[in-house]
């Protein structure tokens, strides 16, 4: 059958079935099938399911704990703490690596196999292909995050138990409250995970190189982690995509603060939009001209990129002092004081001593930074003088406790004191069970904004 008039947009070619157009959903289905058959995807899924169980199993057979990570000392006592430790690890490295391995090759593989010319000559438009592939990347990224969340919770609850979780304010949370907060914490990581997914997609499209797409997000996360360690200003730190992985800690403080959480969500969305916009413009404007006229390999471009990246990192390091200081002595003091109070009372209760509801210690706290600059992340020291009332000529007994505090740019800290002050990492409770000494390591967070 011949066409006897010019076809309008959307009108079927004579002799063609009416349903011949691809569309986003069909691209998504094809991409989902391709990703499912890839070994790397299967290995990642296996790792996400088995990794937390392996971690819990290793902890089960040894006495040590990942104390450097928030909630780390509690992993032998609460399955929820184990899930949160897994989440902390993932936020630092796991999610960027997952995003890179999963999505960094999703567009570049078409260049590697030379299949752009095949897929672009089907019924699906470039817009369909971009959206469909992106949707598949998002689906698999979120699916892996959900797998990790469920697996870490199940592993924790099965192998450690549903013991009470001690939050970052030193309070003991109920099982239900802990579960809700842990799930909310995982949920809050979806947006930053998608930010790194988008970044992987951008790298995959911009460089047309699967290796850069896969490794790039992890390298960028590494640089961001390093930038979070320097400078005392709050603005640059908040703008880094990596920092959004760490803001769920605010949910676990005695007085949850949502400013950084809102900022983290907005920052993640900005990273997502910027990355995807850049990726789409590149796809849309690209000429698929084959090998003869495509980019020639050489060392000039990689060297330029490396020099440019180094200059950018140096500039960002300088800019890390931009804005007000997030970590100050006043904020640290205001946070560690009630937390120490709550943990001391918890310790006393566990030792079988009667603690009146609402009891409060008289503590005089003084915090200072172990560096010339009195603000910013790094090593701090806090002296807590506890005044215990006693009958007699001297009305108070002063007990000094010194904590070495490691403060992060997001306002979270870990405080450790020598056993001579607070005792060993574990202690025997009133029932004779070996439990964590709540004062051995104090975790806390304050609002850096």
């Amino acid at each position, binding site marked *: 059958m011949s066409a*006897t008039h010019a076809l309008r947009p959307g009108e079927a070619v004579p002799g063609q079935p009416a349903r011949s157009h*691809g569309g986003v959903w069909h691209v998504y289905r094809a991409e989902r099938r391709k990703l499912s058959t890839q070994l790397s995807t299967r290995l990642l899924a296996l790792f996400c399911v088995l990794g937390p169980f392996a971690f819990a199993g290793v902890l089960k057979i040894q006495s040590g704990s990942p104390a450097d990570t928030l909630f780390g000392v509690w992993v032998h006592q609460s399955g929820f703490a184990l899930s949160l430790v897994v989440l902390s690890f993932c936020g630092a490295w796991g999610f960027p690596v997952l995003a890179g391995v999963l999505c960094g090759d999703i567009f570049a593989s078409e260049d590697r196999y030379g299949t752009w010319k095949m897929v*672009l*000559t089907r019924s699906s438009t470039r817009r369909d292909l971009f959206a469909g592939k992106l949707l598949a990347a998002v689906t698999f990224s979120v699916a892996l995050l959900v797998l990790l969340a469920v697996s870490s919770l199940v592993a924790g609850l099965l192998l450690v138990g549903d013991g009470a979780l001690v939050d970052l304010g030193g309070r003991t949370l109920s099982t239900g409250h802990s579960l809700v907060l842990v799930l909310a914490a995982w949920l809050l990581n979806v947006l930053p995970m998608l930010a790194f997914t988008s970044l992987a997609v951008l790298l995959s499209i911009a460089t047309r190189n699967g290796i850069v797409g896969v490794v790039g997000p992890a390298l960028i996360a590494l640089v961001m982690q390093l930038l979070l360690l320097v400078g005392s200003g709050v603005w640059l730190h908040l703008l880094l995509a990596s920092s959004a992985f760490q803001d769920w800690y605010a949910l676990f403080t005695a007085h949850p603060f949502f400013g950084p959480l809102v900022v983290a969500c907005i920052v993640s969305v900005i990273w997502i939009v910027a990355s995807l916009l850049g990726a789409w413009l590149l796809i849309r404007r690209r000429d698929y001209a084959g090998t003869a*006229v495509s980019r020639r390999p050489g060392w000039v471009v990689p060297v330029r990129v490396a020099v440019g990246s180094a200059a950018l990192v140096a500039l960002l390091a300088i800019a890390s002092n931009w804005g007000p200081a997030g970590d100050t002595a006043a904020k640290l003091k205001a946070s560690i004081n009630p937390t120490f109070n709550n943990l001391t009372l918890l310790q006393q209760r566990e030792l079988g001593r009667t603690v009146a509801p609402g009891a409060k210690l008289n503590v005089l706290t003084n915090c200072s930074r172990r560096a010339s600059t009195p603000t910013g992340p790094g090593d701090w020291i806090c002296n807590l003088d506890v005044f215990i009332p006693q009958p007699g000529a001297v009305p108070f007994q002063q007990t000094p406790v010194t904590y070495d505090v490691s403060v992060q740019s997001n306002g979270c800290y870990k405080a450790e004191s020598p056993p001579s002050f607070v005792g060993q990492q574990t202690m025997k409770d009133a029932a004779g069970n070996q439990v964590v000494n709540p004062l051995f390591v104090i975790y806390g967070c304050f609002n850096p904004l």
Partner: protein
Amino acid sequence: MTAVAAVRARGLVKRFETTVAVDRVDLIVEEGEVRGLLGPNGAGKTTLLRLLFGLVAPDEGAVELFGRPLGASDTINLDGVAGFVEEPTFYPYLSGRVNLELFAELDGGADASRVDEVLERVGLASRGSDRVSGYSTGMRQRLGIAAALLRSPRLLLLDEPTSGLDPAGARDMGGLVRRLATEGTAVLLSSHLIGDLENVCDSYTVLRLGKVVWNGSAQQLRDQAPGSAYRLATSDDARALEIAEQHPGVHASRAPTGEVRLAVQGRIDAYVLDLGRADVAVRRLELVVSPLESMFFALTSDVELDPAGLTELIEAALAET
């Protein structure tokens, strides 16, 4: 009512940096027509096909497929159009069948029987479950044609479709194209070897350095051909050479190997009849350069195709064989 052309390209220009790959090319392919796109390597054939597929955007000019403008890069609609440029490519870690299923999905999905049907049609039914990484060049070429057929195209654009195929495969491909044309499919085939397309195409467009240097029907191309060349073996070669001198259009010479070569302008029939009348038995008359090949050579090179030029062409053709 007049049918709308399957392809109508007007004033197409494509530059890559300082190179003009396609230079003000006009092209029309009607439905049911098989058009050969000829030209030496670097003539702009593949770039022209890329322009028709929307893989590259023209710097100037416009393309209409079935009367519909190709449109912006992000919304190009290739419904009813199929084919490939350069060699067809696939996901090597997947089987041929799964590759086809994925491509079919991008077209809106196809049932398994349709995939089986096209695999059967290109002779890959028994190897459909094998990974593409184990396919030979010819098998990939067949799979590329299967991927194109999967769409039941009304316009088929194929770049060097016989590349990598054995002679039987190339013949089958030609037969397939002719059958599709009979069903109304417009076909545009590119090749740098006119012999591949000689009995397949209804019309030709010849490109040289990005420009159209000739455009017309297969018959017009034959009629305008400067000549043809043959290898001749007779019972009396010396006499055959003498007789050739009486035919102005026939230039005969003896090669160093002793065989007789003929550069013929026009038809060779009268000369052969004269050989018979002179009791010179023709034992072998082998066409070395066809009229189409000589025309192609004339159009795509700076060499004037006089008898000397044709002789040179014979030498080159013989060297190739």
